[in-house]
């Protein structure tokens, strides 16, 4: 086939792909609900306001202030392959909460219930069918507060704590004080330090010794109010021999402005404990001209403190105008295992700079990294990862695989892997490929009666399969749908 034919064939396929684009961002609605805000802007007063609203103990306020004062001396990191206008930290609300206080789940504002219903999130326990074991417990975070946590009672019976972090501060202060900031230190980085100062809510999970959490725990984050940033903080502790699977989802209304989301997630796994953390990130990505969208600057880190512990991160990143996120594992315990499975998709003007860090400290530690980047439209997608082997990590093992798929010729796919090895018995492997969807693949699918959009969807899903397989079933289905929706308008 000569180039001209090839090009016209390509143009044809691209134009046929267009109809794929009309599904839109279904979560882009706004809920009209009475809310109260902190005064606009960021100052020590804002920090004190948030702390007072949450009725926090003095040590936490001091911790926040310490973070805030240090944050003032820091500069925003600029090493990511990201372009955005400077963020005005004073032009945002750092606290927004629905006005009505609730005493029980039954009192949840019907409008909120409606919102979550529209999003397909079950925040009412009654919704589960009689006689069927519930599979998911949900903590719903709306702007700056947790509005509902389901199946709390049922979980408490077996000793599992699953509640809003603000509630944990009141009820289990010693646990929070012991672990908060122990994985992501207070001065870790610009956005994490900012989060320490102004974090509002998020989930707290504690799984006691030897308990296998009987249902998936899930937090659903929703940014609703205008001009607000969301700064949530999640802390999960898996005590010896315990096991937990945690899911996280997020959406926001369509707005022309860029909203900041700077979260911190800390995981601690003790001896023989396992934590599986799955994310489907679907923040509003901005429109096809790159207007609006969430700036997602997130610090996620897990510490495998105990021997034979395991932390597994799975993420599907389809939303956000900017994603800056590196879920990492510190493999301290001997024989501990870290995993990172990621699909990142950028379309239109979206930019993603995401990856992981695997720090091998203990003996025979093992890590696996599988990253799939899909760039379409004018999207820029970067995998940035570090595998570091410390001198005592005898027999450490890492395998990294990064694949990029390019759709259209205006996008970019970048891979920046760092390998640092200081132990000769350690073995590290990294491989990366970059490709596009070939005409042959498309032709084959269409010949079998698939429409162009189904064919692209099928190929993209196949490309991501290794990662999607890692997701809990309910999420995998959602993620597959999301991927095809996010591809919309990527061609032509």
């Amino acid at each position, binding site marked *: 086939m000569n180039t001209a034919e090839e090009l016209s064939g390509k143009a044809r396929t691209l134009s046929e792909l267009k109809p794929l684009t009309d599904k839109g961002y279904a979560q882009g609605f706004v809920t009209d609900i009475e809310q109260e805000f902190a005064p606009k802007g960021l100052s020590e007063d804002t920090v004190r306001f948030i702390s007072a609203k949450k009725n926090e103990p003095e040590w936490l306020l001091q911790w926040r202030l310490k973070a805030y004062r240090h944050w003032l001396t820091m500069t925003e990191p600029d*090493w990511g392959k990201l372009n955005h206008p400077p963020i005005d930290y004073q032009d945002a609300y750092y606290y927004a909460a629905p006005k009505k206080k609730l005493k029980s789940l039954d009192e949840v504002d019907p409008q909120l219930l409606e919102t979550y219903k529209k999003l397909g999130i079950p925040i009412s326990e009654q919704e589960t069918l009689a006689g069927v074991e519930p599979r998911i417990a949900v903590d719903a975070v709306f702007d700056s507060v947790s509005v509902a946590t389901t199946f709390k009672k049922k979980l408490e019976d077996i000793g599992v704590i699953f509640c809003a972090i603000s509630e944990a501060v009141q009820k289990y202060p010693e646990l929070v004080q012991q672990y908060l900031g122990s994985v992501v230190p207070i001065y870790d980085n610009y956005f994490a330090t900012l989060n320490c100062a102004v974090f509002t809510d998020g989930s707290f999970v504690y799984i006691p010794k030897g308990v296998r959490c009987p249902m998936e725990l899930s937090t659903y984050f929703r940014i609703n109010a205008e001009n607000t940033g969301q700064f949530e903080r999640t802390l999960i502790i898996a005590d010896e021999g315990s096991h937990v699977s945690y899911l996280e989802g997020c959406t926001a209304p369509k707005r022309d402005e860029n909203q900041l989301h700077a979260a911190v997630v800390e995981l601690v796994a003790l001896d023989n404990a396992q934590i599986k953390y799955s994310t489907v990130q679907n923040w509003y990505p901005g429109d096809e001209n790159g207007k609006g969208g969430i700036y997602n600057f997130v610090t996620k880190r897990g510490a495998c403190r105990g021997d034979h512990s395991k932390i597994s991160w799975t993420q599907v990143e389809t939303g956000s105008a900017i994603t800056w996120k590196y879920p990492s594992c510190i493999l301290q315990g001997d024989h501990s295992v870290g995993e990172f499975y990621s699909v990142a998709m950028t379309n239109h003007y979206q930019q993603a700079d995401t990856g992981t860090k695997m720090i091998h400290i203990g003996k025979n530690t093992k890590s696996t990294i599988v990253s799939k980047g899909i760039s379409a439209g004018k999207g820029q997608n970067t995998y940035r990862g570090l595998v570091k082997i410390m*001198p005592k990590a005898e027999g450490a093992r890492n395998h990294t695989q990064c694949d*990029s798929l*390019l*759709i*259209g*010729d*205006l*996008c*970019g*796919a*970048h*891979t*920046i*892997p*760092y*390998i*640092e*090895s*200081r*132990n*000769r*018995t*350690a*073995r*590290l*492997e*990294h*491989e*990366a*490929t*970059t*490709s*596009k969807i070939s005409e042959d693949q498309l032709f084959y699918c269409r010949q079998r009666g698939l429409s162009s959009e189904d064919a692209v969807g099928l190929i993209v899903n196949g490309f991501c399969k290794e990662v999607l397989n890692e997701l809990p079933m309910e999420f995998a289905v959602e993620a597959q749908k999301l991927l095809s929706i996010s591809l919309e308008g990527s061609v032509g």
Partner: protein
Amino acid sequence: MQSIPTYLSQRIAGGVLPADLPGQQHAWLVQKREAALLRFLNNGLPTAQDEDWRYTHLRAIEKETFHLADQSTPTQTIEHMTQDFCGSAVFVDGILSKTLSKLDNLPAGLSVSCVREKLKGQQADDFFPAMIGADSWHDLNTALFDDGAVIDVAAGAVIEKPLEVICLSTKQNNATAYHAKNSIHLGENASLKIYKSKISNASHVIFSTHMNHITLQKGAKLQRIVLSKHADTTFTFVHDDVLIHEGAVFEKTAINLGGKIIRQKTTMNLAGENAYAGMNILTHTAQDGTTDALVDMRHNAPHTQSKQLIRSLAGGKARAVFQGKITVAQIAQKTDAAQNHQGMLLSDTAEIDAKPTLEIYADDVKCSHGNTCGALDETALFYLRSRGIPKEEAERLLQQAFIAELFEPFEESLRDSLMQRITDIIEKGAA
């Protein structure tokens, strides 16, 4: 800011260029040198905060006192990479030695001269184009270069036999410093092989910068082999900047053995369709030095191809670094780029750092990179030993097999002699 060696602070004291530099009569050159010196003084030497210098720390350089090279007679014997060469250019402490070089009977179309020669007289053109990724070392070199090779191949000239370039260092008690600027230009459809060896004795303390400007016109072909045996007290900063036009083929094999701080940077601009760049690098460092190979491959035209093969071995307390980057511009459709780095740690205190980066802005491309790091394969070792091969011998064989891939494209005699020399140097520390 990283402080500069004392020799340098004396040589450029007060921001004034030394009077002994060649080409003082050319206003353009003085201007160029002064501007470069100003930039160098403003920017200083790179620090660990610079992304490209994350792994190579320059502190060790502060401790050494260097002196200007005195170009006395070298005590080393010249070892040839091949006996069958068309000419031989010998540089002593960075200055071309007329007595040691053999440049009288060069084949037609090949001209070999030196920078000092070119700058003699009242008329001289600027024969150094701007470099991609020029850094502080480039500025320092531009300000202070004393000599270098100027190699030119006329259009259509195909030089069969290789040209030999040998860099020697004089044996003296004082540490020497020199700055060389080389230029290689191949006209359309010209072809040349350059075998370069840079050998220093164990007692040599050397600080040198080498800026190599290389241009390949349409359809030209250059094969370049650089074998460097550095003393454990050598600080060398090399930058090859290669411009590769349509259909031209550039192949480089760089062998870096030993050294205190060795930085070898190669920037390649594949500027025309069907241009090809091949890059093979062997790093072996086993004392307490750092060897840092940086490859910046830029595909700026469609149908261009590049291939990189890098093997790093680090023993003792040494550190081997590889930083590779492939950039594919939006216009460079149908690019085929491959990069493969393998590291081998030989001791418990050595370190290998690798950063193979891909930056891709075109969709119809084939790009891949692989990167591994580990020790000798225990299973393979066991297999050999179970066949009655002693442990040391088995280790040696496996190490040889690890690096042999780099030399596979070469003809047998060259491959064997290179492997033999490398093995000798690694095992006996012989030059």
